[in-house]
């Protein structure tokens, strides 16, 4: 399958040029099992430098210090846990960290209510197991197993959605750094460089709370929502650009005014007050994350490209906003209408088309 037809390339393929340039220009010592030094990994993630003629784009826009702590954690072979609201780039950061350190971000376990212990450890090819008995060949290795063998990073997404016995399976792996296979009478020691990056969602708190024992084995980094409008605007703009390049949306990029409007609406409804702090607002049940703002704009571009003029119109945007803001709850609809009348309507001519389009959808 040619790479062109893949819907979404893994980070290491998408940014191969940048990674290669950084590796080629390496000057600092590289930890065992890593492909580049911690400092180069930091450059890869926060961008803003030009290495060997290749512009390094920022992958994570926000606190540089948090990225430093995350990388430093992996250097000390501790496991890293990224916690945050939905849409604060936890998985995104985890993917790029793995891409920078190993050039492989694909050893992923997706945590769900149905995740079993086997998916963390190993399972069997049962046909072969029955035919030949337990043997290394009959083993189906989990991403964590493979990471231990190769001394690389395994990613576990949404760890707090896994049942607690599944989480517990991780404890021995993280503290002993070895995995026993009693069926074959052997133990797999983790090679140097093995580590785990897990992500957890603060909205999932209480679903399957992580035990203190497991938490203690992680260094925890809390990812905040973007601190100010400018940062969030930059994140949305960059990501929309990257997305639209990959998706052939046939529409021109949203202008800065449109992006600002969307981000402003999201920030205000998320924070429960207008940006100038003068007016209190009802919040909605949805998270209204930065990631949602990005997908909303991409979605509007798709609407404009497929059914409209190729330029995002107020109506395209309004349809997206409606879906993002008004989740299935009745109260969201009220909050949204109030926002339209009390805030948006009074914002002047720049906001008028959007207001009217939203108004039409809400009758």
């Amino acid at each position: 399958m040619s790479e062109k037809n893949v819907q979404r390339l893994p980070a290491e393929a998408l940014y191969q040029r940048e990674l290669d340039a950084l590796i080629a220009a390496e000057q600092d010592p590289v930890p065992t099992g890593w492909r580049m030094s911690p400092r180069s990994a930091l450059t890869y993630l926060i961008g803003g430098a030009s290495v060997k003629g290749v512009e390094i784009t920022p992958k994570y826009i926000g606190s540089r210090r948090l990225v430093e702590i995350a990388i430093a954690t992996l250097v000390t072979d501790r496991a890293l846990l990224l916690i945050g609201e939905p849409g604060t780039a936890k998985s995104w950061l985890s993917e790029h960290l793995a891409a920078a350190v190993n050039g492989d971000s694909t050893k992923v376990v997706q945590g769900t209510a149905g995740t079993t212990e086997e998916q963390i450890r190993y399972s069997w090819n049962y046909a072969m197991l029955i035919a030949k008995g337990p043997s290394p060949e009959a083993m189906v290795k989990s991403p964590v197993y493979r990471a231990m063998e190769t001394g690389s990073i395994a990613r576990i997404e949404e760890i707090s959605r896994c049942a607690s016995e599944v989480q517990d399976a991780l404890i021995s792996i993280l503290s002993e750094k070895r995995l026993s296979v009693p069926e074959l009478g052997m133990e797999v020691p983790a090679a140097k460089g093995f580590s785990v990056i897990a992500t957890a969602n603060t909205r999932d708190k209480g679903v399957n709370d992580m035990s203190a024992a497991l938490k203690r084995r992680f260094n925890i980094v809390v990812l905040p929502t973007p601190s100010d409008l400018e940062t969030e605007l930059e994140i949305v703009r960059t990501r929309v650009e990257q997305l639209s390049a990959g998706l052939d949306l046939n529409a021109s990029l949203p202008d800065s005014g449109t992006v600002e409007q969307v981000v402003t609406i999201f920030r205000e409804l998320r924070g429960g007050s207008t940006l100038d702090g003068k007016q209190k607002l009802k919040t909605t049940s949805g998270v209204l994350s930065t990631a949602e703002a990005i997908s909303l704009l991409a979605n509007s571009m798709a609407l404009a490209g497929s059914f409209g003029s190729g330029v995002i119109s107020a109506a395209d945007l309004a349809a997206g906003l409606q879906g993002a803001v008004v989740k299935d709850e009745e109260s969201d609809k009220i909050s949204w209408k109030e926002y339209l009348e009390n805030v948006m309507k009074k914002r002047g001519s720049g906001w008028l088309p959007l207001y009217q389009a939203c108004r039409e959808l809400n009758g």
Partner: protein
Amino acid sequence: MMGRPVLYGVRHLSPAMAFHLRQALDAHRPALVLVEGPSDLNDQMHWLCHPETRFPAAILAYTKAPPVRTILYPLAVYSPELQAILWAHEHGVECRFMDLPSGTMLALEEGSEPLEDEEEPEENTEWVYRRLEEVTGEGHDTFWERKFEQIGDWQTCRKAANTFGAQLRAAAQDGKRRTAQTLVREAYMKRVIGQAVDQGTPPEKIFCVCGAFHVPGLQENTPMTDEEEAALPQADCAATLMPYSYYRLSSRSGYGAGNKAPAYFELLWDALHREGLSGLPSRYLAHLAEAHRKAGNLVSSAEVIEGVRLAQTLCAMRGSRYPCLADLRDAAVTTMGHGNFSELAAAVAATEIGSGIGALPEGVSRTSVQEDFYRQLKELRLEKYRGLERQQLDLDLRERLHVKDQQTALLDLRRSFFLHRLRVLGIHFAAPLPSRQEGANWGEYWDLRWTPEVEIEVVESSLLGDTIEGAAAFALKERGEASTSIGEAAGIFQDAFLCGMPAAARHALSVLQALSVDAAALTEVAETAGRLSLVVRYGDLRRFDAAPVVPLLQQLFLRACLTLEEACQCDAKAAPGVTAAMDHLDRLQLSHDCLEGERWLELLSCVSDRDDLNTLCSGFAMAILLERGAVEEALLAREVARRLSPGVPADLGAGWFEGLAGKNRYALIARLSLWRHLDDYLSALDDGQFRRALVFLRRAFAGFGPSEKNDIAENLGEIWGVNQNQAAEVLMGALTQTEQEALKDLDDFDFDDI
């Protein structure tokens, strides 16, 4: 060839600078150490070197005339200046301050209002620090720590500091005023150095410790001439040493005045003297873990170890050799705080700021008020309250009978006097808490907390007198002379009483007396009399002779009696105030035999009788009389009939009843005849009048409790010949729909036509 004096540039409050400075001193073996500091305060140095002195401490210079202006030179154990002084003391080397005298500094500060046409240039030192932060992406404290605190030897350290100082000086273009002050100070310092050379100390044997910023100035500028020195302004001032606190050091940002993490810097200082900076991470994180555990949280040693490792990796990414505070704190938040700073905030404050306060040996040159303050703290056994933690002190003012001597028996009373005197002086060492036990006048509750501000406030009060008591007396006297109303004067009198200062109380009393000649409102007179009454009643408890107060109390009471009738001619809005004053006066009269009871009762009957006064007041007067048992049944019956007769406007009648119900309801309820009259009166009213009366009566009965209403029900039941329970049901039951509507209509009742 003549050598040159050693100019050793430092940064104030920098542990590494202090550490290396001592090594530099060891290497140079100077014959004279000159330290940047007010040159008139050399006599404070030996106290700094006293073995009982604990740091942080500060040299405080203050003007002797009000308004008091102060300058502070805080010194922590890791201050390079202090270490230079201590080194000199330990090695028997002469040491002197070399900066402008404190009086000149104070005078310069005062006379240096920014010129009007002068604008602060954008490129001042703050601007340079801001730019540094933009370039490094870290706070300038962190920058300093990474680049300077981690230097390993004194030669490099000196070179680095001097370079930094020179470049900072080159980059910063301070305003004219600041530049001028800097130049004057440097010229003076250079003059002092020159004088030392003239006195025969070989130049190369002179070791000058000053801010790195001043080193280029001392190298290049010319010394101050005699004429220039004579022309320096001079403020009349004095100086003292005072204990300082780490909290205060941390809250004062800005170069030289403080640093954000004094307790952490002390850890750094300790580490330098033991295992070196490599031991700092474990020291810091272990302290932090302990503080966090103390607050009831679980921290495992494994987390501390991981924290140390993470901090080391973090600093390596920033290219520094040892982790600095920012690295350590971030590592701690990640490994111990589950990623949230808020979890660790309290422990971080304890570890980085700490609750350290300094202490000075006895006999240190203090102002006499300070001496007195500390002497009394000791004598009154309050020394343990001299801490940064808020502590509560409960006092029992009564004499303790089972102890040996008078002094101990009245310890709590004397404490109370002392704390009240501090309060009067505006020294925020103790704050009174509201009394907890209703009516227990012998209990007093205080919140005690010592801060360096307290020390400054104590020093400031030295302007008022030589002892706490003397200063308090002076403060009260001044306040007394400035007071313009009897309320104010009574407050001062009460303060003097609480402070246990009879002389001051007498003075306040004379002021009060003088003021009471002028007209004052009834309510104010009543309130003032109430305050005096408290003193007369409870004076014994505080060993206060209240006899001189009695005549004034009588005088005020008389005044109130004379103005009461007039005051009762008021509108409905003012009437509650008047009735409150009447109540006040009544209680006064009851508690003091010296007040004429006869006159009072006569006056009340007069108020009660008169028809032209506010009916609420008249009713209330009747209520008091009723309570005193001064009304005969027949008179009451006549009065009720008269006040509630059909001809009288309903609002006046009901208002009178409201006043009557304002006091001692049992006396009312017990009189069946009264309710019969009320019943008759109400039945005689026509619909319109009834509606008016209802408004007032509803208000009058709103204050009655359920049991009181029950008793009324009993009365009415008897009058109407119905079962008491039935009546109670009607009275207490919820309102029906129609009744509620009717009442709602009353809300719109138009009073304009009354």
